[in-house]
């Protein structure tokens, strides 16, 4: 109960209370930094290999030494990303099992309803945006799109890295299929990040909570009203924490 004392005390001097909501743990913030860096390096070293018939790529990959260097950097970044994925899954499962991490990230029917209402709002069939929980359906799409994408990239990347070993078990055609999937999924992921993720965290509103770990009260009320209600027991729409 954080509300009552403040209201009693603000009788004589006006006090502005800014409440900050913790959104991401330090581990999660570092994971995001690691993901960003490895993704960027992988993209920068992957694109020249993908577009070898273009002039700029041929400038970079002009000698066998350069091809080797670019491939080596790509594989080091890939190992970093794989380790990060292993940590992410391990820590996530462990923390959820011990009830230290909420299962908010999983997609529920509520997200489908939210998405439907959002589309209705965008088509002017609804007056207001739907309210969201800790992660709105757009953020869940971001997470799971990248989650599946990284899964595809890791599996196909390892197949391309160790084709001889993989074909001890799998049919040979998985190798050229992986080449198609790896190079195309990379482009899909890159377009997705720019189109969807950058739009929602930079253009729609500047949301740096993945770096700071925190979100202020207004943003919580505006964009994650259901989560705000659940945490505070107030109704976000009634402007609970504010004094007029």
């Amino acid at each position, binding site marked *: 109960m954080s509300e009552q004392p403040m209201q009693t005390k603000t009788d004589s001097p006006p006090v502005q209370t800014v409440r900050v909501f913790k959104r991401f*743990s330090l581990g999660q913030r570092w994971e995001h930094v690691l993901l960003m860096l490895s993704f960027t390096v992988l993209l920068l070293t992957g694109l020249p290999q993908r577009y070898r018939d273009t002039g700029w790529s041929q400038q970079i990959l002009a000698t066998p030494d350069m091809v080797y260097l670019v491939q080596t950097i790509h594989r080091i970044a890939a190992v970093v990303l794989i380790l990060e994925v292993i940590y992410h899954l391990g820590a996530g499962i462990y923390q959820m099992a011990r009830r230290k991490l909420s299962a908010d990230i999983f997609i529920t029917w509520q997200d489908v309803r939210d998405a439907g209402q959002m589309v209705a709002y965008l*088509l002017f069939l609804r007056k207001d945006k739907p309210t969201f929980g800790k992660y709105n359906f757009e953020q869940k799409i971001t997470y799971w799109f990248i989650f599946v994408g990284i899964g595809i990239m890791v599996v196909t990347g390892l197949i391309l890295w160790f084709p001889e070993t993989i074909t001890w078990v799998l049919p040979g055609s998985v190798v050229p299929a992986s080449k198609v999937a790896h190079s195309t999924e990379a482009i899909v992921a890159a377009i997705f990040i720019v189109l969807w993720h950058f739009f929602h965290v930079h253009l729609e509103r500047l949301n740096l909570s993945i770096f700071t770990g925190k979100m202020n009260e207004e943003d919580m009320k505006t964009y994650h009203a259901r989560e705000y209600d659940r945490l505070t027991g107030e109704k976000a729409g009634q402007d609970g924490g504010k004094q007029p």
Partner: protein
Amino acid sequence: MSRAFLVLALLCTGLLAILLVHSVIPSTATPLAQEATPIPNLSISDEYCSSCHGVPGQTFPLEDGTLLDLYVDPLEHASSIHGSQGYACVQCHADVGEYPHPPFSATDRRDVTLQLNVVCQRCHATQYELAMDSVHATALANGNRAAAVCSDCHTAHAVQDWVDEDTGEALPEARLVIPQTCAQCHNDIYQTYLTSVHGSALAEGNPDVPTCIDCHGVHNIEDPTTTTFRLSSPQLCAECHTDPAVMSKYGISTEVLNTYVADFHGTTVTLFQHQNPEAETNKPVCYDCHGVHDIKRADDPEKGLQVKENLLTTCQKCHPDAQENFPTSWLSHYIPSPENYPLVYYVNLFYKIFIPTVLGGMGLLVVMDVSRAMINKSRRRKPAPQPEEQAAMAPVEEPVLAPLEAEELVEAEAAEPAEEIVSIDDQVAQTSPTPATDAQEPEVDRDLSGEDNDEPASSQTTPEDDQPGEEVNNG
């Protein structure tokens, strides 16, 4: 007086200048070629030469003791391209003149050939120049006296016409002779070539197949062991193998180059071919898999790469760990289709559908999002609300709150610096789904203690986080 002198002086200098110019022009105009090879004395007839050289048994002693046979069969010369077109002996042997000939000496039989070989350039300068760039000329310059010169391939007195005047291409009968000509020195390769799909077809008189010169060139024969040759070799094969007119006769795909370039090996080879022809690469070119001079049909039971075991053996040359499944990781020049490599085909198809629908759909949502936000903004501007109205509107229309709150915040800070930041940790919030008001305070405490990893860091960076409740109120 002085005028006459001036005129005289001018005349003298003018004359001198004319003399000078005349003396310079003829000396520079003298063709150097004529100095290198003497002008043939055409008054010496072939009959005159053959009165001695047309009689068998004439010899000339060389320095190593061997005897040089000086007999030239008059019929052989007459049936050669030179003889049949009326070229005289002295047009090549220009420096010998009438008998007695000027002194001549050579260490051995090969020395004679090498000495006489230079005369070809008098008429065939282009070919001679090209030959000087060849691997043969390089070998000769490096001391290999056996390296081929003009007459080793063309003969000295029985030179035949091998080129079609109109097309510039080798005549069909010449194509049959060419490998035999090369075989004079390169017999091992010739024997291998005869067993190949190309060589055996040539022996049957097939004019479509390549002879030696189609891959190696004619006069400027390139060193085939260089990286440059290796990297550009796929283009050599492609000259015939991408020609539908030739390939359709044999039911061979003309996509072999495209599919090679599109796959792992060819991509790298083509890249280096353009960017860095000196690059050493372990990526295979056509002949690394199909063979060089022993190229076999694709369905040949011994070597053909359509036979799975043969292909695996070929792969294992570079991929020693490769097992039974490995060869199909190479698309075998196929373009993926539902029949060939369906997995690759359907993965590709999936993305062709996935990208426009899903990413396109997301793009559409973003565009709608932006446009709705802009429309909202423009609508809200119109009423130009009064401050009282703003306050009234605030709870309903969220975004309008922003300026108001900011104002209020500034006022509050000006009046009273005390600002309180309450951190609400939501990590374990699911354990308390009911927002029980009196349970709120201990809830926060427990949440913070639950986070072992993050608590020290957040307490370092933001000390406010440590204040769980409202006690620290400076006001």
